[in-house]
């Protein structure tokens, strides 16, 4: 049996939740004070995901960097691989919001899209 400690992010209460696991199965969820906390804890121990937001190099643009994000959240343990892939990549101006800058980022199957427009220099 493994116990995982989490802080719920649904509201400022920030309940400390303890999830007891038996292998991949959730045996018990304790410490939450509402149903949202239960759902959060289950998702967080099974498959935690995060949207990565950062910037990517632009060539020939009015600015040298453009902000971007993973179009969907990526597995939490892939965050640094995603960052590495984005930091190695670059794109050409002009860039529009929503433009796909990387098709499949670090093997996650999730694209990286621009979150700001950059015109040509």
């Amino acid at each position, binding site marked *: 049996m493994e116990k995982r400690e989490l*802080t*719920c*992010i649904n*509201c*400022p*209460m*920030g309940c400390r939740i303890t999830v007891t696991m038996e292998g991949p199965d959730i045996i018990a969820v304790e410490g939450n*004070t509402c149903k949202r906390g239960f759902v959060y804890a289950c998702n967080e121990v099974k498959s935690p995901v*995060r*949207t*990565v*937001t*950062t*910037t990517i*190099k632009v060539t020939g643009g009015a*600015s*040298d*960097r453009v*902000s971007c*994000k993973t179009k969907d959240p990526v597995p*939490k343990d892939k*965050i*640094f691989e995603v*960052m590495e892939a984005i930091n190695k990549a670059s794109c050409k101006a002009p860039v529009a*919001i929503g433009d796909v800058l990387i098709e499949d980022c670090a093997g996650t199957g999730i694209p990286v899209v621009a*979150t*700001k*427009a950059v015109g040509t220099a």
Partner: protein
Amino acid sequence: MKAEIVIVGGGPAGLAAAISAAKEDNNLNILILERDSELGGILNQCIHNGFGLHTFNEELTGPEYAARFEAQLDDLGIHYMLDTMVLDVASSVVTAVNSKEGVFTVECGAIVLCMGCRERPRGALNIPGLRPAGVFTAGTAQRLVNIEGYMPGKEVVILGSGDIGLIMARRMTLEGAKVKAVCELMTYSGGLKRNIVQCLDDFDIPLLLSHTVVDIKGKERVTSVVIAEVDERSKPIPGTEQEITCDTLLLSCGLIPENELSRSAGVKINPATNGPVVNESFETSIPGVFACGNVLHVHDLVDYVSEESGRAGRSAARFVKASKAEESPVINIKNGNGVRYTVPSFVRVNELEDDLVIRFRSGNVYKDNYISVLFDGETKLHRRKPIITPGEMEQVILKKADLANAPSEILIEITEI
């Protein structure tokens, strides 16, 4: 130059105010004056997501949120001038300067103040120690990393656990820096819970509550900082000092509304918010001068800024059209137990829209208490709240119909069970 409404500042507040003023009356000549070289204000450097959940029902990044408003601005054909600094505001004339026009004035019917806020710098914090390079406010570091593409340092300590500090802890970590600790003077963090979990816990960055920086070392560049635990009066406790090697100290120690223009115009300032005192229409003590966004009171959610600024913009449009303000019964809003301030401070009953939203902050952390609203001493609303913290703005919404009998005073307080 002439305009019917001049909006000082083209950040989230200025954009929302301009759009709603134009929607109220599209024949109005509205002019936004922005000192930066693009619209959007602080949203441009807030590249993280979490914006717009209330306004658009989806999670956007800062630049995406700004772009939605800029698109509406273009559709409505609203004029704006970039790289233009407002120097002075008087009741019907705004003086500004830019490198094309030089110094110029704009005669106008109404003014909306949307100057935002500034970070509290090192000089205002009285941190002892040397004056090496490597001490930045969190927002300056955010601009360097996200817009300029420079990393301010490699080993970082952050003082203050406001949201910008938390966001920068994650941002610096993602870009390869080592964030060694976030120190918070208070016994609680002023940041959103979600940011504490996703920006600190996710990366095992320690949050040291009741801790502060007592010394900064380094001649040319920061080489270390000394932190110490503080007692309940926020005094460092001798013997608890520890030295942390680092090259960078980021400061996230509070935001101050930027009211130099408001003050010199003679606008009455609320000492609790450092922003103007306003009524239900977001009008300041000077008729025809409105204020909204972080210049009014510092917000944690941009969605609330957009909503309040919408009201301010509509009010400015109505002010320009109306020949004379009607006489109206006035209700004063008083801060009761635990309430630091409210916005607005008073309401004119005849000027109310359907809903009156009163926003406020608490002075402390309250668990399992009630928010109570009293009309002339009589309880009208009594709502249980599992938690109230100074870091998260609270609100009560009253219906215009409920205020028909016009009490002379509304008291908002936090009451124990």
